[in-house]
């Protein structure tokens, strides 16, 4: 499970494996758990995944980026229970020049958002929970327990 982690992600460690003397530029994206969403106070969340596909899809995305730009890419997505401020996802792209590093990094995070089968269940201040659903107006749908 090279690209999925059930424990805390360290972006610096992810990046250090990609450094080399001929790479002059490194761009790192880190997504962190925010304390609000859709106007509600978030207290934490849980990520679940279709793990074998998520792993393969992450590997495909990294391979695509490395084929398209002269860059080396690292990608790790967190799974399990996260608190506010925890790292949800980290992408590092290193390259000889900054254009490739920026573009490869951006490509990877955008692709992760739309292709990797990961789901987010948020917990709120009032104890309720909801599934994050970017396709709905409110951004979340109630969990089955809340709906019944």
């Amino acid at each position, binding site marked *: 499970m090279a690209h999925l982690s059930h424990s805390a992600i360290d972006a610096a460690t992810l990046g250090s494996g990609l450094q080399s003397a001929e790479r002059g530029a490194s761009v790192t994206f880190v997504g962190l758990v925010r304390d609000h969403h859709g106007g509600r106070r978030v207290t934490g969340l849980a990520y679940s995944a279709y793990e074998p596909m998520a792993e393969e899809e992450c590997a495909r995305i990294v391979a695509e980026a490395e084929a398209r730009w002269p860059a080396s890419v690292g990608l790790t997505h967190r799974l399990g229970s996260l608190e506010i401020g925890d790292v949800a996802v980290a992408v590092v792209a290193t390259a000889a020049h900054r254009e490739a590093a920026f573009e490869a990094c951006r490509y990877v995070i955008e692709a992760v958002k739309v292709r990797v089968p990961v789901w987010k269940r948020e917990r709120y201040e009032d104890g309720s929970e909801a599934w994050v659903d*970017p396709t709905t107006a409110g951004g979340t749908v109630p969990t089955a327990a809340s709906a019944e």
Partner: protein
Amino acid sequence: MTVSSPPTIRVRVLLFARYAEILGTDALELILAEPATVASVVAALRSRRNGHLLPPHPLCAVNLRQASAATRLGSHDEIAVLPPLAGG
């Protein structure tokens, strides 16, 4: 005397997140009449209890790759029905 029955396939279906909650399970086996597609799986799921809460055209994957409703299935394929993605 022999009776010829229509050919069928057996597939494994995985459900995740809200869809697993709706259908009350995260994995099931289905026996489908040939020719079977991703749409056949979705139709079978929507005919189950609470199945109408699934969208008519959910995102699906066959054997770890996104697939369209028309994707033809074979025996032992793994079909995953995926709620809207929320990673990253």
